[in-house]
């Protein structure tokens, strides 16, 4: 919160009025913006607090006609749900870790060093983003079947990592390139090797980029669907996205539990975000997305 405000400058005569009003107007605007992004999930929350039949009752009613308070207890007391949650946490954290570890050296090196194939590499990275996993899932299955890794966390962690690598490399590449070479040179004069320079100086300078890449990868891995669906056979190894389909089938609908479970599934992401959000703003550094 200690960020210097960068509000565009206003004409002088309007400034005084605005100064008095600003502390009141801005939070209200903030509330409106928050509502604009939250309202569907408020609908979702209300749907979790009514019996399933009430969700699809005609005519619609915004508030539940009949409140049901047990949904979250049902969901959180369900062993299947807890297993799915566990899988999602493990997979998302591990995928994010792999991406960060793999992307940093690649992004740094391509940002700082000219070498044969540099442009080709960056292009390859971009192109990997263009394949829809839906179209590749058969090949992915074949690969992990050949490697005897079907139904293992390893398989979906590696897949998530590979498909999210491009974003991380791109974002970090931009941040690394925007850090002036002089800083690095100073470090090198002090005798730091390239790796040490990267770890000690560049990483802290590129922190907003790192945070962006982390959030991005975590969310993408958290919400991955089609690959996990295909690779994870055991019910307790399915991630949440795949597992919660069970709540609503063609023959039986538990909308309340589906939405209750979905709300729970959002929480870890928001918590993670809340924990690292302040770094997104980059207190001392100023990296540019490039």
């Amino acid at each position: 919160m200690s960020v210097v405000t960068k509000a565009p400058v206003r004409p002088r005569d309007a400034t005084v009025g605005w100064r008095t009003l600003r502390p009141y107007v801005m939070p209200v605007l903030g509330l409106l913006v928050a509502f604009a992004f939250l309202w569907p999930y408020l609908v979702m929350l209300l749907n979790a607090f009514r019996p399933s039949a009430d969700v699809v009752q005609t005519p619609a009613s915004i508030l539940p006609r009949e409140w049901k308070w047990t949904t979250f207890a049902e969901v959180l007391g369900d062993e299947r749900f807890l297993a799915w949650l566990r899988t999602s946490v493990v997979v998302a954290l591990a995928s994010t870790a792999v991406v960060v570890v793999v992307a940093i050296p690649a992004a740094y090196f391509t940002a700082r060093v000219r070498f044969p194939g540099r442009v080709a590499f960056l292009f390859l990275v971009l192109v990997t983003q263009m394949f829809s996993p839906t179209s590749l899932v058969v090949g992915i299955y074949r690969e992990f079947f050949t490697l005897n890794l079907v139904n293992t966390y390893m398989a979906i962690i590696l897949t998530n990592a590979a498909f999210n690598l491009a974003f991380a490399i791109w974002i970090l590449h931009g941040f690394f390139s925007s850090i002036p070479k002089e800083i690095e040179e100073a470090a090198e004069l002090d005798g730091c090797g390239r790796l040490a320079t990267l770890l000690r100086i560049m990483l802290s300078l590129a922190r907003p980029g790192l945070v962006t890449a982390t959030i991005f990868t975590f969310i993408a891995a958290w919400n991955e669907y089609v690959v996990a669906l295909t690779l994870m056979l055991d019910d307790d190894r399915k991630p949440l996205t795949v597992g919660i389909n069970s709540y609503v089938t063609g023959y039986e609908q538990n909308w309340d539990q589906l939405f209750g479970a979905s709300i729970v599934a959002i929480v870890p992401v928001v918590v993670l975000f809340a924990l690292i959000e302040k770094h997104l703003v980059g207190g001392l550094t100023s990296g540019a997305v490039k």
Partner: protein
Amino acid sequence: MSSARPMVSGAAATAAPDTAPPSDSKPRRRRARARRGREPLHVALLWLGPALALILGVVVWPVVELVRASLSRYSITGLRRGDAGLENFRQVLANDALDTVLVNTLVWVVAVVALTMLVSLGVAQFLNKDFRGRRLVRWAVIVPWAASLVITARLFTLIYSYYYGVLNALLLKIGLIDTPIDFLGSDAWVMPSMVAVGVFVSIPFTAYVLVAGLNAIPGDVYEAARLDGASPWQAWRLVTLPLLRPAIMVATVLNMIYVFNSFPIIYTLNESNPGFGHDTTITFMYKLAFKSAEKDVGQSAAAGLFNVCIILIAVLAYLRITRWRKES
């Protein structure tokens, strides 16, 4: 591009460690010039190796399989029946619905990306201001991104429903409409309804890329603009926007790719419509394999390769138009 390079605060510059020993001995033997600029291929492989391994192992291998599948003849069960040559590609190109699907795709991508960028610019500016409760607003904005797309899409099918949808109930209540709108069934409304959801879920990601970009713009640039007597609008247009260009471009390119490849929204919101009337190339590809009478994974693979070509060309065209690589 280099013009957008921000200044660095003194605190960061002095953060350099004093006498850390180099972690590897090789660089020391190299000349300083090489250290700063060039490396031979084998050193590059060391740094890029893990990334390359992941990409080659997990992306390229399945791509090879995809190409193989596109050249094969398959039974409806998925059993491979031999080589098909280019027949699958011909079949896809001959599909009656192809024109509709391509137009839908164009509308979908252009509308979602353009609206997303526009709204996100505003949201990012706002999130970058300092005010009480800003953190909470930032947490709120991330929620549509944090929620799984499959679930958000399902949620919106309920919200949009003709009979029990909250949206219709609300519009009826405040008297904006007399009869419910068939958001997901009326041909005129399906695409706008899907676009609205597409924009809604794309904004958070985009806004945060732009927030990162805004953060990189040093405050003293504005100071200079003010001293020059620029109005807020002028300052934004002449200072913010050009400095934000790199972030805008990254966000646009990535959004183009994600929106083009977006599956759950279109598939779910369009679920009760027969045929290909509101499909994009991605759902078209999926339906070719599993839902339409073709039920042919070979054709679907061919369509998948066409898709990659389309988005590749679109992105390259965008980069060319906006002169992406001005610097390198």
